[in-house]
């Protein structure tokens, strides 16, 4: 994918010296001999001394809302693919509904089903535990699934959720954004298509200014397109 990055952003490579105050070292950096170096290829945020990744796999954190795909059903729960090096586990006890007598987990959700869920625990071996006892947790058996680079998720959400709100309001659709880069969109087909196009633009132009204005404009023009039957 071709990136669009405003030229004033400084691109750094692993090993570039970015600071001399180890106390300030943020994510995407490492410290050696009291110097702060870039640990990944990305964009330097000089203020908070961190490197914003351009790519890379999603590493789960407690509290993240993720969109997962059921991989396997076990007697005590489900293993869930969250597009990360670590698969997650959703125990039966964290499923919000009651499992009726005589039924087991595979009658509730099967391989290939899509869910949104919250990361509630990660042990030192990076075993990840999910819960669906959360108001944003759902079984997503209709709608569309889009995948973007997870590092661009904050831009899709926008400041205090402004971007997602914009898409929802202007297009009258439902959206759930997983921190792992999976985004669920549900609504009228033409509107959902516009939303997905917008998400792709946000992903590509995540590191530029004036994104909200451009998206507003894009939606305005897109809504004028003749509806397909």
């Amino acid at each position, binding site marked *: 994918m071709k990136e669009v990055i405003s030229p004033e952003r400084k691109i750094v490579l692993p090993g570039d010296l970015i600071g001399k105050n180890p106390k300030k070292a943020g994510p995407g950096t490492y410290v050696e001999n009291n110097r702060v170096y870039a640990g990944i290829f990305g964009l330097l945020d000089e203020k908070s001394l961190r490197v914003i990744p351009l790519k890379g796999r999603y590493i789960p954190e407690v509290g993240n809302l993720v969109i997962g*795909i059921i991989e396997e059903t076990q007697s005590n729960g489900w293993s869930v*693919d969250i597009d990360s090096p670590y698969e997650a586990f959703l125990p039966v006890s964290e499923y919000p509904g009651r499992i009726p007598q005589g039924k087991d987990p595979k009658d509730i959700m099967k*391989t*290939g*089903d*899509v869910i949104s869920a919250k990361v509630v625990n990660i042990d030192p071996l990076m075993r990840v535990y999910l819960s669906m006892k959360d108001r944003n947790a759902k079984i*997503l*058996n209709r709608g569309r*699934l889009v995948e973007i680079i997870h590092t661009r998720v904050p831009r899709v959400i926008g400041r205090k959720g402004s971007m997602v709100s914009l898409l929802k309001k202007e297009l009258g659709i439902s959206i759930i954004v997983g921190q792992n880069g999976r985004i669920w969109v549900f609504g009228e087909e033409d509107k959902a298509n516009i939303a997905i196009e917008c998400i792709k633009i946000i992903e590509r132009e995540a590191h530029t200014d004036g994104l909200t204005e451009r998206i507003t404009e894009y939606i305005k023009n897109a809504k004028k397109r003749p509806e397909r039957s």
Partner: protein
Amino acid sequence: MKLSNEIVADIKRDYVYQKLRNNERIDGRGFTEFRKIRIETGIIDKAEGSAVVRIGDTEVMVGIKMQPGEPFPDTPDRGVIISNAELVPLASPTFEPGPPDENSIELARVVDRGIRESEAIDLEKLCITEGEEVWLVFIDIHVLDDDGNLQDASALAAISALLNTTIPNERFGYGDDEILPVRDLPVSVTSLIVDEMILVDPSSDEEKLSKSRITITTDTHDNIVAIQKSGAYTLTEDKLYEVVDISIEKAREIRALLRDV
């Protein structure tokens, strides 16, 4: 590696499928439309002939190597074609290192059959000393990026590379180098069968819907020179003829690209 079974979200697969039910492919193509095809030849100087073919984002390289060797006892005056395919793990998260599996063997053999049966190469011209020494032609298929329909990309890369091949006479002391004579242009067209629908040149997203494929290879006279039904499904006669008609027509279009190679 467990990754060999790519987990696909049902709703994603359903969406591709729903679109098809509405007579639409997710990338907006017509059902019998190929993605954009690009052919480049002569990339590998070490090879006697080479080509890279891109069909959309799928990318396959073929290199041709030739060396003298023994003929088969039953064809003492004919050269030998040896085809091989490697699905190197670089090309897809689902490919694993190791000896060729059934998929890469099938891939190579279907390419081989098209070239052999169309008699694209005049094997008699590849005899050096009858019964003792003939040219061995190695067709090595190297998959670089798998976004679906490796079969047609490989076949097209193979014939493109052959069109670009020089017989290395000098290196082995047999006089001047000469162009490898290619007499025909076999072209394969692969379709994915989803329910009753025929999807020509399936992308990797579409290949996740169904394993039912059929490849039809035709020559310059619209003769069929190879067929491969691949996948556990039942093909009806009507469907077969429909696919054959489409394949002949599509192969003609692709063959026109080969004339510029």
